[in-house]
């Protein structure tokens, strides 16, 4: 079964310049694996080496944050809309002064 995945601007290059793509899978994890099969390199943008979602990646299923659902185990059904949205952090850092 097929779900619709919305791709944010910073990921579009890797997704063939499309703003949404379809993917397969009964869970979010399977959906991401299916995306990786179609668009190699996409999974490492979303997930840490251990497979968990990166800190700055928010994923929503039909508008709900998957961290309030079942994370990567969140079940998907045909026609669901998966949105990938980068967190909007400003950040702070060490200052590289007169390096």
């Amino acid at each position, binding site marked *: 079964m097929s779900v619709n995945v*919305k791709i*944010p*601007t*910073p*990921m579009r*290059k890797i997704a063939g310049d499309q*703003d949404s793509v379809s993917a397969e899978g009964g869970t979010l994890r399977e959906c991401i694996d299916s995306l990786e099969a179609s668009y190699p390199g996409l999974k490492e*943008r979303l997930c840490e080496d251990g497979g968990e979602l*990166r*800190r*700055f*990646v*928010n994923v*929503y299923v039909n*508008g709900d*944050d998957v*961290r*309030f659902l079942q994370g990567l185990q969140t079940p998907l059904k045909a026609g669901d809309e998966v*949105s990938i*949205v*980068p*967190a*909007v*952090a*400003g*950040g*702070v*850092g060490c*200052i*590289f*002064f*007169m390096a």
Partner: protein
Amino acid sequence: MTHAKALRCRECGREYPLDSINVCEFCFGPLEVTYDYDAIAKVISREAIANGPPTLWRYHYLLPCDREMAVDIAAGFTPLIRAQNLGEALGLRYLYIKNDCVNPTWSFKDRVVAVASTKAREFGFDTLACASTGNLANSVAAHAAKASMRAFVFIPADLEQGKVLGSAIYNPTVVAINGNYDDVNRVCSELSDKYPWAFVNINVRPYYAEGSKTLGYEVAEQLGWQAPDHCVVPMASGSLFTKIWKGLSELSQLGMISSVHTKMSGTQALGCSPIVAAWEGGTLNVQPVRPNTIAKSLAIGNPADGYYALRTMADSGGYAASSTDEEIVEGISLLAKSEGIFAETAGGVVIAGLKKLVDQGRIDPDEVVVAFITGGGLKTQEAVAEHVKPPLQIEPSVNAFEEALASRSS
């Protein structure tokens, strides 16, 4: 001109030109402005700053936009007040209030929007937009008016009336979304992919966030060019918290103040305290929550800068505290009664958190403490309306007055 050099990913270090982007294409990490501090050191001085305007533009050397292009409604350089009465009530000898209610749209958001709107104009945008819990929307609408730009402001539908009206008066398109701030933020993130607008806290966020540094600069200047011992700051996304620290650190590295020993302590409402909860749990992993608090300006359940706020807290040796809605109202009331400053709910969160940190022995009575009051109380009247005494309503006579007074005192 500006001394900003590039955008750099906070996570992987990749650099990007100064453009209207906010996340790294490779790891989605946040981008931050880098500066040519060598060049800044040659032109900045205490005297040069003192000769500047009584606004945040006196620190233009350290801002990522062109001073000549400034969208200027005179944001910043707000009073730093020695709070002797409140200090006595809490047991602090050197307590100061940074009163950022005294900004053109009555909140600290004028600092970030001054920078973001200036940068948006430099980039050639004709439309400003934002996802907001209210204060930001007010400021974006006002700056857009001043810059003759179009404005779209997106807010949760359950906001206080004062914050809705405080945007509408400047004639932007106000969009009230049936959902909480995190829903508003998600929709705006998606809209920013579709519309060629400057969403101040999304695609121009790296510049926007820099505006908050000016709070750190001002406090240092107003204390006679020294950093305070302790800052107590409200946290929503956590951005302001980290940028005050960055501002102090920059001044120190430029030799404008001596080394920074400031402890940064952050406060949240218990009904939305994901950063405080992570700090208490000893983790840098912020678990998002669904907000439920009267402190709507701080009701961000998924704080984008939470991770960095926790790191700043740890690096500086600061603490975190959260307060119930009841304690927040008491905080607003205490500040008003003792210092004559009427703060919005976020200010109540700060005063209640400050009280808690003192009671817990985490702030020494002799420390120089600055409490950051970031927004004015007339915007959140609902929070305190039932906690103030109604007027004595009388017939126009001395007798009526004295009778009414006697009956209230009895």
